[in-house]
């Protein structure tokens, strides 16, 4: 078995391959104009033939960048008569409550390309006014004359009855050939017209550009005699075929951050942690996600570009919270004597001062270097030499002198402010999702994650931290563990006590039929698929519902089975801290999640095989500053790849490896487990 995952990020294109149980990694610069060339450069770098690869998994930021840079297609909106402005009106909220300069979300479709056709369906799906087909056809011809490249069709209540959208789609495709047409009912079968319109518009807007990229990639693969499986990573934590990705590019928007969390979830399950926090700290931001039994939560209320002014996306996205601190976050002083870290980042260029690319603003990485926590000679496997004196200079000029501190004191301050800010954010994430950090393990990865994880864990009393194998490449590795996955969701609003078994069974059958059609389209055998139904339940009066797994329609009928109600109360108590078994329950949606894992998984096998260390390198000793600027501690410096299973390392120590560094504080004890992961028992905060 030979699997390769390639993830295109803003700066680097990362590759992880697993061939017959051995791992290899590669990195090359992203080629913005022709991302396929960046992928090809990676493949060339590892000297692998495309024809030898069985499985090619791919993640890319092309869809989300198209939105953020607003470089999508010229797109038209077709809406129900009276409602083309739903997209511009949105929900009318102003999250930045005191800003006179606030900006509401900017639609991706201009109002002069927003059109209405006569038709009307009600919430039950009854047709109140038939579709005006002649007018629709005339509109299609007009759109062709306007050289529209993409069309988003979103009618009121199409989630309940998509007939009008489907017919309008046929007419528009015929009248405006060449345009990329998206029907809301093909993407989302849920109520809330603004969020559904926005999702449909996003899909149409990015569609042509993503399709041409995928075509180019597919051609390159074919020319290289590739005959294996091709999968594209999507935001729900699973994958899809290239064909489906061309139709539903909106589902690949947030695939990048998700991949690492999928890997962390698998590892949590493998290690037996039922409550676990995934923590991923890279160059620009840190990200955190909560898992219960290895499963991250998946939500359908995501905003591209942030909640305040971003574009809502009503499709399943793994629940990840972004925190504004990364290795490149800059330290700065305000005019009134306050020291702050972030949220601005120095990015890759100029990057930290120590890169020597002209950056004169100190960042977290500079502080880590000055404090002896990073090894100037071993950064990125020694491919990049860091200059400590540049870090010192930047810290002195920007922080130490204005505040009257020594350079080491200032560096300690930067690290401490960043760590406590991340601690507070991680605690908020876990508490908001129903877990006490004291009952959780943390899996830390990303280039900078292992360097800061132990301080954070100590601060909020997380007892155990796991640094997985290859933490710096863990996201690409996670991608290799993602199954093919499709979430099919259908609005079904009814009070639980009034649900009729036939009605629930009909929705389930419809979802299953859609699923079977999709599996057939993808060439997948339903026998290899697992089908999981859940009902999204809430107490009457609530807005947000919680998915509760169930088996068959009888579980929903006659007021719901006792097991279903108990499961809901328990999940509600976990997530919101209380349950109200006496209150009435309402069903909001029924969902079917289909996953296909295939025969074994090379990455999961690799993660769980016995660890074989590489050649050992001798330990060294280095001064590292922890608390006291005047008293650095003499820390043991070890080379991780050479550590055999069972090795124990007590802090203060620095564990170095090719793409990451783990900092152990005094009191921490790390043990290399049988699979090579570092399991750290976190030391306790000293009082006073």
């Amino acid at each position, binding site marked *: 078995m030979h699997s390769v995952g390639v993830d295109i990020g803003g700066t680097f294109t990362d590759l992880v391959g697993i061939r017959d149980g051995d791992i290899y990694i590669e990195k090359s610069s992203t080629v913005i104009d022709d991302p396929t060339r960046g992928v090809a450069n990676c493949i060339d770098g590892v000297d692998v033939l495309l024809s030898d690869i069985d499985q090619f998994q791919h993640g890319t930021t092309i869809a989300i960048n198209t939105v953020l840079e607003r470089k999508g297609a010229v797109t038209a909106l077709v809406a129900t008569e*009276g*409602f083309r*402005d*739903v997209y*511009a*009106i*949105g*929900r*009318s*909220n*102003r*999250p*930045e*409550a*005191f*800003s*006179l*300069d*606030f900006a*509401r979300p900017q639609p991706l479709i*201009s*109002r*002069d390309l927003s059109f209405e056709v006569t038709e009307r369906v*009600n*919430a039950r799906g009854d047709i109140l006014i038939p579709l005006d087909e002649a007018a629709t056809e005339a509109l299609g011809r007009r759109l062709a004359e306007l050289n529209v490249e993409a069309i988003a069709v979103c009618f*009121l*209540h199409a*989630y309940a009855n998509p007939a009008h959208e489907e017919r309008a789609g046929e007419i528009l495709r015929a009248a405006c050939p060449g345009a990329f047409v998206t029907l809301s009912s093909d993407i989302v079968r849920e*109520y*809330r*017209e603004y969020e559904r319109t926005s999702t449909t518009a996003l899909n149409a807007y990015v569609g042509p550009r993503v399709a041409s990229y995928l075509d180019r990639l597919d051609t390159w693969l074919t020319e290289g005699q590739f005959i294996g499986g091709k999968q594209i990573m999507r935001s729900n934590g699973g994958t899809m075929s290239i064909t489906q990705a061309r139709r539903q590019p909106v589902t690949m928007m947030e695939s990048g951050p998700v991949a690492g969390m999928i890997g962390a979830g698998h590892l949590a399950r493998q290690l037996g942690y039922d409550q676990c926090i995934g923590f991923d700290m890279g160059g620009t931001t840190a990200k955190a996600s909560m898992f219960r039994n290895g499963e991250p939560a998946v939500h359908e209320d995501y905003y591209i570009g942030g909640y305040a002014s971003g574009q809502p996306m009503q499709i399943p996205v793994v629940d990840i919270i972004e925190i504004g601190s990364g290795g490149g976050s800059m330290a700065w002083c*305000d*005019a*009134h*004597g*306050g*020291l*702050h870290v972030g949220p601005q980042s120095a990015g890759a260029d100029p990057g930290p001062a120590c890169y020597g690319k002209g950056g004169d603003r100190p960042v977290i990485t500079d502080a880590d270097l000055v404090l002896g926590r990073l090894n100037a000679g071993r950064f990125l496997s020694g491919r990049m030499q860091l200059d400590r004196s540049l870090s010192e200079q930047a810290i002195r000029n920007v922080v130490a002198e204005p*505040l009257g*501190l020594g350079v080491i*004191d200032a560096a*300690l*301050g930067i690290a*401490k*402010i960043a760590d*406590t800010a991340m601690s*507070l954010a991680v*605690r*908020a994430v876990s*508490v*908001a999702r129903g877990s006490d950090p004291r009952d959780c393990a943390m899996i830390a990865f990303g280039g900078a994650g292992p360097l800061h994880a132990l301080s954070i864990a100590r601060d909020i009393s997380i007892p155990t931290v796991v640094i997985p194998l290859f933490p710096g490449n863990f996201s690409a590795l996670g991608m290799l563990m993602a199954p093919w996955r499709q979430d099919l969701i259908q609005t079904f609003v009814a009070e639980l006590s009034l649900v009729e078994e036939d009605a629930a069974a009909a929705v389930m059958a419809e979802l299953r039929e859609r699923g079977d059609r999709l599996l057939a389209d993808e060439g997948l055998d339903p026998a290899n698929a697992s089908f999981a139904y859940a009902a999204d339940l809430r107490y009457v*009066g*609530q*807005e947000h519902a919680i998915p509760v797994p169930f088996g068959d329609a009888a579980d929903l009928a006659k007021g719901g089975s006792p097991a279903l109600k108990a499961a809901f109360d328990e999940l509600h108590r976990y997530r*919101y*801290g*209380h349950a*109200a078994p006496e209150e009435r329950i309402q069903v909001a949606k029924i969902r079917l999640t289909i996953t296909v894992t295939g025969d074994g998984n090379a990455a999961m096998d690799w993660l769980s095989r016995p660890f074989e260390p590489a050649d050992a390198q001798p330990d060294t000793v280095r001064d590292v500053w922890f608390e006291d600027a005047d008293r650095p501690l003499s820390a043991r410096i070890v080379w991780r790849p050479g550590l055999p299973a069972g090795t124990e390392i007590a802090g203060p120590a620095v564990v170095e490896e090719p793409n990451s560094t783990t900092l152990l504080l005094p009191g921490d004890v790390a043990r290399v487990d049988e699979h090579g992961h570092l399991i750290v028992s976190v030391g306790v905060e000293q*009082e*006073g």
Partner: protein
Amino acid sequence: MAVHPITLEVVRNAFVAFSEEMATALCRSAHNMMIYEVRDFCCGLIDTDGNMISQNAGGLPIFLADLGVAVQDGIDRYGLDGFAPGDVIIMNHGGVCGQHLNNIVIYTPCFHEGELVAFAANRAHWVDVGGSRVGFGSYDSFEIFQEGIQLRSLKVFDKGVRNDAVWQIIHDNLRFPESSLGDLRAQIAACNIAERRLNELYRRYGTETIAACTAEIWKQSEAAARAVVAGIPDGVYEAESCLDNDGVVIDKPLVIKARVTVDGDSMTIDYTGTNPQVRSPLNSGSGGVAAARIAFKCLTLPDAPVNEGGFRPLTVISPEGTILNARPPAAIGLWSIALPTVIDVILKALAPALPHRIPAAHKGDMGGCSFYGYREDDGRRFLLMNIMGGGWGGRPAADGESAAMSICQGDVRNAPIEVQEMNYPFVIECHKLRTDSGGAGQYRGGLGVEIRYRCLQDTIANINFDRTVDAPWGLHGGHDGAVNEAVIHRIDGSEERVLKQTNIHLVAGDRVTFLTGGGGGYGDPKRRDRAELIRDLRTGLVSPEAARAEYGLEDLGSAAE
């Protein structure tokens, strides 16, 4: 005592995080949607002098550093040595808090090594607190005793032991005691979390260091706010506007006056001349302070965390006996209705001094409507509530935003059409931007919206629109925006405009159209960038007639290309 800058930043972040964690806890366990959906609450830490140490972000904007007065009343009553661990105090007294009685404050004292160091406090909107009508704000009320039960600085828990007498009195005076006492428990749980967090922080840094950090944080916030005020030219600036009426006497407008004095790095906002208090519940005790603080925060530190220091440069003079500082026992159920207009009046006063900061007026009301009745299909009671956005004023360098919530509502959201039709007996016939509703200007006002309901059965409507007469004003030559309007189209073909009105009976086939106001324009419309104007024409935000009449566009032919 000098504070180490690193410790200062750690403590600053911690204070903010504790208030946010309280808010999370409250939302998680509250029982009514006014808390977890509308976010009608605030949480914060108060020092032993009643000053605000920190407050959560993201609640309703109208609660700005106003928990202190509630706590101070308890300090006055019990003395600082009259609090013990395990005490829980409840407070909603109209004369002290000045807000409608549904806003219940709960707070607990926090101790470190036996010494009282701070209070953890929050305020949340209960669905009902008794009184003559369900909920709040009936126009039938003319004194506060009709609006519910008043609880003034009472210990519901005394050293951890529940005061059963107080508990029973509360329980027996509410229409929905299970829900509200559930909210009460949630409020206490939120305070307890903040107590625990504060305790950890005090153990780590000690009383002296934290007191020094608190003082320094206030000092820095104050300095930042003063620096902004110092940039405003000294002077006395005045403005006024009118609310339509008090909902009882329909033909008498209510005057709002503000005189803003800027003197160096201090600002005084004086409401002398504002309408005397009225018989209806459109009064408040603290509305003047709340409005002044929102305006001040928008102008000085819109993105910074809320604490006492940021408001030190501000003095508010709100004479007793006006609608913004009504004498008990005035009814105050609709205490916040006037505030969007009051805030706009303050900004309008300062417009000549800050032409590059102040936008023209926004739609100026809260945009709420409700329909209720019994469903003809299953006989169940229904209550549809919706809140609509409107236009904001043109800005010194940008057009006003369209279809946005008022300055008092922040992150409140409208109800989706599909949700309304799914749950209630109505067909909604349109939801669109009102062409030409944005005041003309070099920078155009934002547009209001139009939404039309068709009743499928008998129903009763309450309409709470204000500012249907005094239009959102333009600035520096910009034109006024369109006013708010509500129109009933009867099935018999008759039409009537409605102002604030309750108990409007409607039958199947009747339609109600709501038109929300647009923002005022900023600057002379003739100076509007022609490319922008042509874009407005192309997108239909401005009609050809208005382009000619208001913007003076001569050559429509080429513009239409």
